[in-house]
């Protein structure tokens, strides 16, 4: 037990905690799970579409992953980092043109109809490929899904597609929805998008807008003796301070996704009966990144970009902005990724003198007021930490004579300003690493992306060598060779700095100690909670 209830000090001691945490495969109370109970969880937002097959995002998964299941889930100790869910096995052909899934037998939808390969084929071809925010990229070459029998689905690709990518995409991108519910009418307007029907351990019961979501036990679930809980309630608590109060007042038992602000964790960890847990988010790593607009002539100069990198004290950012709950970054793949990460990249130590020298060398001398030039800095508003880092960056840049003007926007305005209008010089962004660089990481530096695409390279950066590397990796089938290409990719990005990776962080859960089997997989908060239980 004690190794999981961490104190601030232990976290501060090793910023590599993200790495270390993957080494602890199991967690939970050493007691036999009990049946029954209502788990009340804090929710800070109400997604407008609850269909995880269409919207593959953590806000949707947090609720829907208990109702709608994927083919496989991330795992600390499973083969390829996966645990079977609706698929029992997956096999990629050597030519990269097909992947064969063997499906689980005896699974029923919540409306009683049997789950078959036809549902997988329908979900993949009609939803993941044409409609899903991430699937549109990963499954773009999916041509057909053959269903030789009810429990076999064979994905056919028009172009060789790396099996490693498909595997890594399974936990987030492969939510299967019932064909018989979706086949008539427009998929986007189907009522099941707001009251999902799946195969998961919990059935969607009701949503009272502004109040709560209620899920109830699926008595017909395929998992033996599962689920343990009778009900899961997501109580909507829009105010940042209310999750902590609700935990203390024992009105809720769990606040995931850092619903309790970092600054409150020290105090809340001392409340008897509450635990602070950093595990269970290893597969959901967010990256703190400085996006640069390379259309600005100053920023198009590598020396200036290097100077900015040297001006940022990453250790200070981790300690002050993230209060230790983060790790410093070296490049575009986070340190805790077990497959792709390499430390063998150029690094930029905090060195103000060097940064100043680089800027002088680049020809941007300080004018009489000590300033070299001015930049517009737009921190993304989605997290407290991105805004706070914006404040820090302004000061760090002032030390090297760059005058950064902060522009604070709300989400909609920020998205438009940065990704459509390109009305920024520097932006602070929190891209997500989703287990494979091809899912949502290479797009951050690749050229030729149309205007308006969020969380992509909208800084006008173009590097033919890097583009060629990304293209090559996307068609390399051999896992080892593909991994090597992404290591080269990391090196190249760290060398040329199309963007500057500062830190990597995940989320924190605060939970009552009566809740068992929590944080037992790398995407726990967005997994199915079939084995989660509560003491009466």
């Amino acid at each position, binding site marked *: 037990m004690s190794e999981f209830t961490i104190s601030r000090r232990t976290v501060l001691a090793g910023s590599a905690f993200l790495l270390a945490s993957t080494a602890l495969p199991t967690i939970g109370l050493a007691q036999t799970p009990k049946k029954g109970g209502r788990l009340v969880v804090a929710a800070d937002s109400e997604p407008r579409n609850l269909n995880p097959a269409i919207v593959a995002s953590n806000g949707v998964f947090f609720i829907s992953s208990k109702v709608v299941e994927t083919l496989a889930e991330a795992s600390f100790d499973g083969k390829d980092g996966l645990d079977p869910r609706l698929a029992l096995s997956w096999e990629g052909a050597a030519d990269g043109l097909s992947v064969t899934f063997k499906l689980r037998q005896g699974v029923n939808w919540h409306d009683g109809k049997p789950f078959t390969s036809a549902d997988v084929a329908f979900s993949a071809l009609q939803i993941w490929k044409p409609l899903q925010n991430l699937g549109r990229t990963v499954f773009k070459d999916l041509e057909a899904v053959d269903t030789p029998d009810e429990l076999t689905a064979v994905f056919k690709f028009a172009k060789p597609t790396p099996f490693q990518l498909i595997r890594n995409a399974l936990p987030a991108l492969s939510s299967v929805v019932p064909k018989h519910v979706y086949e008539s009418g427009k998929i986007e307007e189907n009522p099941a998008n707001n009251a999902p029907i799946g195969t998961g351990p919990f059935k969607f019961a009701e949503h009272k807008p502004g*109040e709560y979501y209620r899920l109830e036990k699926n008595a017909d679930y395929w998992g033996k003796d599962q689920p343990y809980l009778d009900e899961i309630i997501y*109580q909507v608590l829009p105010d940042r301070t209310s999750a902590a109060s609700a935990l203390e007042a024992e009105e809720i038992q769990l606040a995931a996704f850092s619903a309790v602000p970092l600054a409150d964790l020290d105090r809340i960890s001392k409340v008897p009966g509450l635990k602070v847990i950093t595990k269970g988010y290893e597969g959901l790593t967010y990256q703190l990144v400085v996006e640069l607009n390379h259309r600005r002539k100053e920023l198009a100069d590598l020396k200036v970009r290097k100077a900015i990198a040297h001006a940022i004290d990453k250790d200070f950012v981790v300690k002050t902005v993230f209060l230790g709950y983060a790790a410093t970054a070296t490049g575009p793949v986070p340190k805790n990724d077990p497959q792709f990460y390499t430390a063998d990249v150029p690094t930029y130590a905090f060195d103000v003198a060097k940064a100043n020298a680089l800027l002088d060398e680049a020809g941007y001398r300080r004018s009489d007021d000590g300033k070299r030039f001015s930049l517009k800095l737009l921190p993304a508003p989605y997290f407290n930490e991105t805004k706070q880092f914006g404040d820090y960056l302004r000061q760090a840049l002032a030390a090297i004579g760059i005058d950064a003007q902060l522009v604070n926007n709300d989400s*909609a305005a920020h998205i438009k300003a940065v990704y459509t209008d390109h009305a920024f010089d520097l932006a602070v962004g929190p891209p997500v690493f989703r287990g494979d660089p091809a899912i949502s990481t290479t797009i951050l530096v690749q050229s030729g992306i149309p205007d308006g695409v969020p969380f992509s390279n909208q800084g006008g950066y173009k590097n033919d060598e890097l583009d060629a590397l990304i293209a090559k990796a996307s068609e390399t089938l051999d896992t080892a060779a593909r991994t090597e290409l992404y290591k080269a990719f990391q090196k190249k990005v760290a060398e040329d700095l199309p963007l500057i990776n500062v830190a990597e962080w995940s989320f924190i859960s605060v939970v009552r100690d009566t809740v068992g089997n929590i944080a037992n997989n790398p995407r726990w908060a967005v997994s199915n909670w079939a084995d989660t239980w509560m003491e009466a």
Partner: protein
Amino acid sequence: MNRALTLIRRRLIGGIFVLLIVVIGTFLLLETAPGDAVDAYIASTGGDAGMIELLRHRWGLDQSVLTRLANYLWALLHLDLGQSVTFSRPIRDVILERLPNTLLLMGSATALSFGLGSALGIYAGARPGSVRDRFLSIGSLALYAVPGFWLGLVLIIVFAVDLRWFPIGGIESIASGKTGLDRAVDIARHLVLPVSALGFIYLALYLRMMRAGMAEVWRQDFVLAARAKGLSRRRIVLAHVARNALLPLVTMLGLQSAQMLGGSVVIESVFSVPGLGRLAQEAVAARDIPLLLGIILVSAVMVIVINLLVDIAYAVLDPRVGASEASA
């Protein structure tokens, strides 16, 4: 009665103009805000260029501003508030779901602040300059200076977290299956803290106004006359002084109703009450223009109706008001 009818007619015609200006003004104001509903949506999901184009088309955002405004007004003429892009449901339903909560919260808070405020004001104003007057005046000033969200948070920490007398938020217990009286008691328990937080701040205003009005009236000749007649002090305070000081408070009641709608945005967030204020905040963040317009329209209608009621009350309380309006 005739006087009241004339008043209502005049106010209704004026009200429609006000509403039209409010609608067009808000629409254009929101149009100038950077980013649209699709930008707000993809901020939480991401997506490629094709998907963004698809969404803009599906939500009708690829049409020009004027076309959309004209469409909106045309639908409004048929009493149709349109479809919310955030909720993919008719706006009328979304608003009707939240309206009772806000009305309950505002109504209770107004009753609390007006009732208790004027009662304390009478108590303080009965003996201007006395110790209890000083105490209440200073106390109410302090209360008035407190920001609403802070008072809300303090109430939560003391009464919900430490003492656990009341729930920390929400409008009723979750999926409790309570009905009838049990449910009413449950809702009342949930409302105690938010109503106190919202009501106590405005209470100070009524208290001070009542007290100041009474201090004024005490100096009037008719009070001297009442004293000379040998009326009891109690009767002078209630029937003569307080009654004459009450009129400005009624005016204030009308003005405050709009203020309180603004205050409820904060209180609804702090106490997680699913009301109109919170809905408005979500609509702005999501750039759901039709939804926000719907909320503003409903709020504007509410304010107009309350002010109409205030005017009628005024006409009843003070015969001079209606007479001048009717003859004008």
